[in-house]
């Protein structure tokens, strides 16, 4: 039972990260290695808001997410867009950005773990298992936010524009869709989701400068397994990976959990580069 719940929470966090990652790839063909930094900045932003600026948690969280969204848009406009002709170039530059952010966090805050307050401090009991309320909240928020995003894309005009661009960027331009502005919007959404994950998970996952690495490795794993550019694929793969990791942690040992995702990536890339639902193959 514990596995069921913890697995769900883990999957929820991964899903939030993966969906954002796959969204920006599906729309702009950008493999954003700085995505993990959005997650980290969400957590650190909340810490700064509450710990240093003394704001209430809600305000700090909202500010942090807004800040990260803005940061993401700026990075996209200034650093990524000029290099869009080269996927490798984008890879290098986002990797460099993630390193710069990590270093900046390290220089400003040092390497000790920081404390991000939780929205819900109490433990709840579900099915005989004690679960931290915060974890359940994370699960809830993840489901709501991803659901909202899905509805947004399927039901609104803006959402249709996004879908159009992800299918054929050139054609979308001819139809008058302002792709540049949509890229910024999608980046903002993508970054916000990651930051939200950071805000929610900060209290129970470690907050230190290198916290961006593992999420990006896992987001990449999920997106490769689920298929680049496919949101349902990401959700499915996030569930698979979240549960796989939780199972490994309980049955084998926690040190092996990291390998699960990376191994999954490698194996998937080797045997089925398009992933389960992917539209674009890796070759």
């Amino acid at each position: 039972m514990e596995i069921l719940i913890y697995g769900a929470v883990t999957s929820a966090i991964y899903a939030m990260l993966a969906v954002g990652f796959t969204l920006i790839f599906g729309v702009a063909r950008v493999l954003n290695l700085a995505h993990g930094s959005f997650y980290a900045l969400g957590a650190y932003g909340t810490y700064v808001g509450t710990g240093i600026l003394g704001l209430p948690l809600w305000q700090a969280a909202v500010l942090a997410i807004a800040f990260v969204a803005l940061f993401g848009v700026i990075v996209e406009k200034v650093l990524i867009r000029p290099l869009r002709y080269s996927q490798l170039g984008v890879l290098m530059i986002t990797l460099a950005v993630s390193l710069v952010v990590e270093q900046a966090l390290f220089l400003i805050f040092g390497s000790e773990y920081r404390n991000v307050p939780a929205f819900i401090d109490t433990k709840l009991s579900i099915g005989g298992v004690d679960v931290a309320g915060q974890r359940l909240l994370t699960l809830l928020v993840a489901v709501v936010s991803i659901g909202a995003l899905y509805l947004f894309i399927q039901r609104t005009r803006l959402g249709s524009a996004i879908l159009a661009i992800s299918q054929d960027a050139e054609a979308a331009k001819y139809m008058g869709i302002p792709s540049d502005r949509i890229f910024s919007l999608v980046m903002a959404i993508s970054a916000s989701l990651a930051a939200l994950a950071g805000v929610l998970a900060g209290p129970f996952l470690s907050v230190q400068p290198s916290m961006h690495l593992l999420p990006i490795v896992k987001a990449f794993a999920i997106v490769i397994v689920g298929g680049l550019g496919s949101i349902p694929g990401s959700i499915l793969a996030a569930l698979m990976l979240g549960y796989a990791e939780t199972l490994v942690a309980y049955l084998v040992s926690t040190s092996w959990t990291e390998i699960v995702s990376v191994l999954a990536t490698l194996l998937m890339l080797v045997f089925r580069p398009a992933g389960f639902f992917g539209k674009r193959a890796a070759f």
Partner: protein
Amino acid sequence: MSGFKQLDKLSGAAGATALLLLAAAPLVFPGTYLIGVLTVAAIYGIWAVSWDFMSGLTGRENFGHSLFIGVGAYAAGFLNVQMELGPWWSLPVSMLLAMGFAVLLGFPTLRLKGPYFALAMLSAAVIMQRLMLIFWEHTGGEEGIQDIAPLIRNHLHYYWFVLALLGVITFLLGWLARSRWGLILRAIRGDEATCLAAGIPITTYKIVSLVISAAFAGLGGALYAHYQLQVSPQLFAVVTSVTIITMVYVGGMGTIFGPVGGALLLTLLTEGLRNVGEWRLMVYSVLLILIIFFLPDGVIAPLWRRLRVAVGGKP
């Protein structure tokens, strides 16, 4: 004319001169500090050159180069400490082991498009790093393997040994890059389907060049192990690969000789920044960003080309 790019005499002479100057430097400025810095620079040079030969020419950027380095280094550690063999065994074994990994990883990953190959290799390096930590009883975990014996006790002589290897490897790979090997690798970068239509077995060439790249990376790893006298999982980290890639960018992708200059420059820069130790990585990353944007051809190679023209050589 044979049509292949020639290693013109001017460049060759310049390279030889640079090598001599580097060898002589510690004699002019004595002290183990300089020797240490230059030794590390030379080893990074070997790593950078080996990366450039494969990734610089084919355009398939390998984000997991640190895997071959770590494998070579750990091989040295194992042989020397766990198996108590003499240190000279490390050199051939590290090369062979790294080459083996290259074959193993190359087959499945080289058919992937650029970014996916890069990330697959990155994942492989991360896995290796994790494995070193998981099997800590055999590998020493976080602390790695300590008390590795040096190859040559005298620091200066070891430096000259490493420098000599750097020279040999650079000239060898530089020559290869300008021969039909290099032409084919650059053609692979140009268009793979057309290569097939021209009769070139691209998979073979890609794998062999990865193997060559890995061999020298592993050798460098062993040399590093016998210099630092210890190895740790940090060698497998992304940071190592990114540092090397930055050095190649600075030197000039695909030029083979440029990356040596890049390695030297950046190692000296790192030392210069030692006072602001924590800022080093930051500087590297920002530097990388700037170079990708403003100097995609690098610093060293274009500079050398201008110098060459100024002295009357060909452009």
